[in-house]
């Protein structure tokens, strides 16, 4: 069964790495639902958050291929129930309509949106949430002359209690040739990732 999988990739921060990861998907003609990269909490280590909609089997192979990239430390594969995730969206709406229409303000409150900028001609709102919340607000604002909309890729935190951070750092300390974490993770996924 195809479902959303969120891959969290820890890697060196190196020119070209994004491409090295992206071609693993494009070679197999697999579409990325979402792709985010940012520095991680560990100095000099980068974190990619990738969302794909595929079967467990396909994703497992993808994960192993990504882990094969020399500059990648570790890849975590999680279904939606194993993560906490958010996206951010920006909405640009004509200020005149908002001023006139009290319903809009109610809407924003209801969706937990914030004002980022107010100008004479337009106002920019920001909302954070998951697909549904962002889409619902989009649908509503569309009725009030929405000028522009943009949504970020997904960022996700893994619910697991054992620190991902520690596992990545452990890699550096271990016998350089070995990777106990790697094996352990793949063999006892549930233990590591249950809340």
């Amino acid at each position: 069964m195809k479902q959303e999988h969120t891959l969290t990739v820890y890697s060196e921060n190196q020119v070209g790495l994004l491409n090295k990861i992206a071609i693993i998907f494009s070679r197999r003609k697999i579409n990325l639902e979402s792709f985010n990269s940012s520095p991680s909490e560990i100095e000099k280590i980068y974190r990619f958050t990738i969302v794909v909609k595929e079967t467990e089997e396909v994703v497992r192979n993808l994960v192993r291929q990504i882990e094969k990239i020399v500059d990648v430390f570790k890849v975590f594969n999680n279904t939606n129930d194993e993560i906490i995730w958010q996206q951010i969206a920006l909405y640009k709406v004509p200020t005149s309509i908002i001023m006139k229409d009290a319903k809009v303000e109610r809407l924003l409150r209801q969706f937990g949106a914030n004002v980022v900028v107010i100008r004479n001609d337009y106002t920019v709102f920001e909302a954070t949430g998951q697909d549904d919340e962002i889409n619902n607000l989009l649908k509503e604002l569309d009725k009030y002359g929405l000028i522009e909309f943009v949504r970020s890729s997904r960022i996700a935190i893994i619910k697991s209690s054992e620190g991902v951070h520690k596992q990545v750092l452990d890699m550096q300390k271990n016998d350089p040739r070995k990777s106990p974490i790697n094996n352990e993770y793949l063999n006892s996924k549930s233990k590591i990732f249950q809340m």
Partner: protein
Amino acid sequence: METVEQNTLENNIGKTHNVSGSLAVIDALLSEDITTVFGYPGGAIMPIYDALYDFNDSLNHILVRHEQGAIHAAQGYARVSGKTGVVFATSGPGATNLVTGLADAQIDSTPLVCITGQVFAHLLGTDAFQETDVINITTPITKWNYQVTDANEIPEVLAKAFFIASSGRPGPVLIDITKNAQLQLFDYKGYRQCVHVRSYRAEPIVRNEYIEQAAKLINEAKKPFVIFGQGVILGNAEKEFLAFIEKAGLPTAWTIMGMSAIPTNHPLGVGMLGMHGNYGPNYLTNECDVLIAVGMRFDDRVTGRLDKYAKQAKVVHLDIDPAEIDKNVATTVAVWGNCKETLPLLTALVEEKTHTEWFKEFDIKKEKETTQLITKELNPTEGELTMGEVLNVLNELTNGEAVIVTDVGQHQMVACRYAKQTKSRSNITSGGLGTMGFALPAAIGAKFGAPEREVIAIMGDGGAQMNIQELGTIMQFKPNVKILILNNSFLGMVRQWQELFHKKRYSFTDIQSPNFVTLASAYNIAGKQISKREELKASLKEMLDHPESYLLEVAVLHEDNVFPMVPQGKGVAEIVLSKEEI
């Protein structure tokens, strides 16, 4: 990155101040004990060639005639010796000419370090003369690649390159060095070999519980069957492998890439797997109860149709690369690790057995293949020569001690089916990519990698014309390579498929050839053309006895087909022995 101190400075280049990036490249090679480099110069790599000029004694540079020749030669060198092959090429067209070889080395896990020149760093992205984005072109076909723009990076990056290329599952690494970095003078602190890259796991840890589970399956099996690939050779685990199969008395078949890891006439050996492999091992894959795969990756040419592949069997898969586990065939027990390490652990736990009844099934199948096919192929008494009989006579003369380097096509399948091999690293062929034009340059490289061994390149008339310029390399550097062209006046393997699956519509497979012998003589290479059975043995002997390179062209049956065959889209048990069965 962790490194080992190495005090090589004084020995190799004798200075530390104002060292050029190019000199640091040379020092890296010398420190890695590289003795042979295959390459071709050009504008963007000239500083490295200039530095090379002073190291003629310690670094043997082979000037090929095409960069594709350089990289296939480096592959042949690496495959025969187990050492890392090194290639130099210039930017732009020099680098793009490496692409086929990189793809080939990547899919066949061959350790290479390719060093390409690149335009000055300030010109990157300006479409400068001979600028190509070689890093992005080669990303999917290298184990690792990196662009150096500052000489200070060179020692560390090259150390990393050599470590990555040769450790774990080996593969090609490409380092692109901009010309400014080659020219740049810097304070050189010496070369330190790399032993660890923090984000890279060369080998997974071996876990005992899986060894135990695997041993249990093997011990309980009534019809266990071992299939192995190049992993046994790459892991230098030939002895450990033999100890394993001999103790447990297991029937054992090889893939084309694994061939020669055990002697081809070993009593436990039941032949070759694959589309044109032997009848028994293909057929009985679907009868075994436990399939033990060692250092192989279940290529589709080996498995045939996957949903009809070994469905009845429990599968034990030993591999160093976690990405290979469950990729094509679901495993019951996965034993991750270098088989050099895992096999002895497994051997300790398996029981001594003989499986006499089970072996009989292989014997019956072998008998059938022999009477229906092999005898006719190897010992025809009339008609034109067959490829099989050429191999048969060659076996007699070499006693299975030669390195056989094959090109791609019918002759490749016939050579791998019939060549007798007694030593590991004797079968060098483009297995995963099927690269025509591989054999001639790879044979040149193999001769440099194993000068003491007889090296025979076996080619079709098509593939022979695909990197034939390398005859020039033989002329100039004189590796003693024997060139055997099996000329059927067709692109034989494609013609076979046209005959079998496209109603004999021979669309552009009738290929004409030059007079190969005359051509060879233009390169000062002796040669001969034959077509008669009576001449075969004496001519092969003449070729082998010739003190230098020699080209023998044998005219063979034009429309012969290679059988058995697992037709594409069919299961391994649907293997056929003749075209009537298709």
